[in-house]
């Protein structure tokens, strides 16, 4: 069961999975704006990565090596000052809440361990795209190409 820090009830949630907190820095991945196609980036090391800091679409994952550990993609940006996803825990814990889809810290993809193959997703994210690749019993990280688009079209409705 996920453990929630009770002191953070009003400010957000420190994302904890099976007792493992997110540790270490969050590396920001900055890519040039593509002239054609989507943004693609290869994960080759464990860590926390901020792939996109705005709304967009997660196109898919191409996993060519499982390695060990887990892979988690989250619609949200960690507040580096606090180490929390600034969100309302009550909403984040209730998947049926009408505001759940807009939560900062919403999990959009999770696999433990990662599974080889091409995974088409097409998932929209509102706040940003954060990747947590946590280590497993061996030190071999998965090898995954992550493909996403930054939203550039402003909806008029």
């Amino acid at each position, binding site marked *: 069961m996920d453990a929630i820090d009770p002191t953070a009830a009003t400010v957000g949630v420190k994302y904890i999975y099976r007792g493992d907190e997110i540790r270490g820095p969050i590396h920001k991945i900055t890519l040039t704006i593509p002239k054609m*196609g989507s943004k693609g980036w290869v994960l080759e090391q464990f860590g926390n990565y901020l792939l996109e800091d705005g709304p967009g679409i997660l196109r898919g994952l*191409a996993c060519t090596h499982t390695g060990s550990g887990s892979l988690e993609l989250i619609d949200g940006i960690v507040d580096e000052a606090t180490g929390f996803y600034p969100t309302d825990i009550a909403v984040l814990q209730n998947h049926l809440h009408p505001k759940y889809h807009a939560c900062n810290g919403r999990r959009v993809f999770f696999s433990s361990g990662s599974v080889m193959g091409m995974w088409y997703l097409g998932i929209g994210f509102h706040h940003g795209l954060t990747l947590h690749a946590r280590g497993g019993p061996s030190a071999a990280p998965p090898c995954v190409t992550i493909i996403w688009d930054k939203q550039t079209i402003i909806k008029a409705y």
Partner: protein
Amino acid sequence: MMIDPFKIKDMYVGTEPASLMRGCQIDQCGQFRLSRRDCELHSVKVITQGSSGFIELSDWSGRPLWRQPSSFSGSFVLGCFAEHGLVIMQEMAVPASIAISWREEDELLI
């Protein structure tokens, strides 16, 4: 087979104006430059898996776009941007058979 990182063979693949897609198949080890300008890596198909080595696709700036540390057959539709060119490197004891398709902005053969 150890490949020379400084020895890159250029491959020229034409297209038709209807689709702007280009494709080729590689069955040998080495480094091949498929495109010499901005393009979109559409897909990688490993048709026959090789053994004891790796396959890597990167753009001309050296940033990896797709990597297979141990070869297995499969189809990967990526659609990601390759800046200034597209390079494939295959270093295997027994080479894999790989089909790659990509898209450039026009039909010019550069």
